[in-house]
C-alpha cells in the first residue's frame, strides 16, 4: 500500500474573509511549497482534500498552475490518477478532472 501525503487545500482559504482559491502562479507556488513532485518521486500517494463548507470556488487557473509541472513530467491523466486522489465534492471532482484532461491535451500537443 502506498504511503499517503495529504495536501489540505482548505487551508488556502481564510474564512470568513476568503472562500475561494485562484491564480496560476499561486498554484505553481503551492506545488513547490508542498514539494509535491518530490513526494510523487518518492512513491507516495498525493491526497488532496477540499472541504466544500469553507472552499466555495476554485478557479481553473489554480488547478492548471498546481499540476503544470506534474503533467510536464508524467503526461497523462491515467498516470496522474494512479498517484493523486482528490477528496472533495462532485463539483470539484469534475472540475479537476476536466482540467487534467486539458493539461494532458496541452502538454501532449
Amino acid at each position, binding site marked *: 500500500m502506498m504511503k499517503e501525503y495529504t495536501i489540505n487545500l482548505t487551508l488556502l482559504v481564510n474564512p470568513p474573509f*476568503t*472562500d*475561494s482559491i*485562484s*491564480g*496560476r502562479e499561486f498554484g505553481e507556488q503551492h506545488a513547490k511549497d508542498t514539494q509535491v513532485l518530490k513526494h510523487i518521486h518518492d512513491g507516495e500517494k498525493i491526497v488532496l482534500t477540499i472541504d466544500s463548507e469553507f472552499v*466555495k*470556488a*476554485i*478557479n*481553473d*487557473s489554480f488547478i*492548471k498552475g498546481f499540476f503544470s509541472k506534474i503533467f510536464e513530467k508524467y503526461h497523462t491523466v491515467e498516470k496522474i490518477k494512479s498517484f493523486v486522489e482528490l477528496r472533495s465534492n462532485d*463539483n470539484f471532482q469534475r*472540475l479537476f478532472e*476536466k*482540467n487534467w*484532461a*486539458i493539461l494532458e*491535451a*496541452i502538454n501532449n*500537443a
Partner: protein
Amino acid sequence: MHNFHHFPIESGAGSSNLIAVIAIIISVLSLISSIYLIYLTKRLEILYQEFESLCIKNVENIFSGLDNIFDQNELSLASDHRSHITTIMTELQGFLISLRDSVYGKIDVQSLIDIMESFTEKIYVGNDAKLLEFKGDYYSTKLKIYNSLYNHAIEKEIGILLIFKRKRSI
C-alpha cells in the same frame, strides 16, 4: 516603256499566325485562371461556412450560458457565480482542444486559455463586486476570443489556400 521593278512582297501570313497563337494562349490562360479563381472563391466560401458551423456556432452556444448569467444576475455578487463561470470557461477550453485535435490543428489553445484566465481571475479577486462591474471585461474577453479564432482562420487555415498549400493536421 515602263520599267517594272520587282520588289519582294511580304504576305504577312507568318506574323499574323504568331499573333493569333499568342492570343489563343493568352485566352486559354485567362480562362484557366478564371476557372481556378472561381474554384478558390467557392472553396474559401465553403471553408468559411465550415469554420462558422464547426467553431463559431459552438463557441456561441457555450458563451450563451455566460451571457445568461451576466444578463440575469447583474446586481448579484460576482462571487455567487464564480464556480458557474469557471465551469463554462473550462467547458469552452475543452471544446477548443477537441476542435484543435480533430479539425483545426493550428489553433493556439494556450493563448485562448490565457485570455479566459485573465478574465476569471478578476472575478475571483473582486469578492464584493457585483456581476455588472465585470460585464465590460466579459464582452472584451469574448471579443478577444472571437478575434483570435477568426484571425486563426484567415491567417493559418483559410489563408494557406492562397498559396496552394492548404494542409490540415488530421
